């Protein structure tokens, strides 16, 4: 699975993209976040205010309970500020 990070979230994680092998027992975005938090404290800092985080699965806006699989591309980013 590819995970992408943008804006200040990218800076907190220290990279714009990483590839992970999604464990079998992880089925949705919420479970992925819990898994990441266990791996490294830097993630919990990002996800502590979940309402501030936007999620895209395969480049489409998604929610915390969206199902995911190892072939998906998932992105975490703050609310957008273009235009």
């Amino acid at each position, binding site marked *: 699975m590819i995970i*992408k990070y*943008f*804006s*200040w979230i990218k800076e907190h994680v220290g990279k714009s993209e990483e590839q992970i092998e999604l464990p079998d027992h992880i089925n949705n975005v919420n479970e992925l976040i819990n898994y990441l938090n266990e791996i490294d404290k830097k993630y919990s800092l990002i996800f502590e205010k979940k309402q501030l985080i936007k999620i*895209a699965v395969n*480049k*489409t*806006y998604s929610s915390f309970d969206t199902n995911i699989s190892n072939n998906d591309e998932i*992105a975490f*980013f*703050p*609310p*957008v*500020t*273009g*235009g």
Partner: protein
Amino acid sequence: MSKNSPLIKIKIQNEDFDVSDEIKILHQNNTGAIVNFIGVVRGYDEKNNQIINSMTLEHYPGMTESEIEKIVFESFQRWELTGVTVIHRIGNLKPSDQIVFVGVSSKHRQNAFDGCNFIMDWLKTKAPFWKVEENNNKKNWVNFNENDNKALKKWQ
């Protein structure tokens, strides 16, 4: 391009754009009315009371284009439009540089006004771009403006 097929152009680019050139493209036969929005980099951040030296725009390649396409298609569902052009710049920009162009053509002026306004409001809340302002050695990621969510209410 046949006389009546709608003209759609969506570009994410580093380069500047020329508004006159874009308007010529939207000048289709029998169009009548063209409304454009142009966003420009401000030189001063009033909320934080400081000068902005430059700004960098990053985006999510692929998702940006598809989100803008969805918004543009929705605008054609809602109004009789003859053409829509959306150009959004990325990369490093300086105060008074152009950031975004949204041009909408229609036979009827109110459709062009509403279509352009609608696309801008949705682009502001959905298109995955992020601005970081640079002032000397400080970087300041611009916060989402809650008024942009409120602006969407007029389209419900």
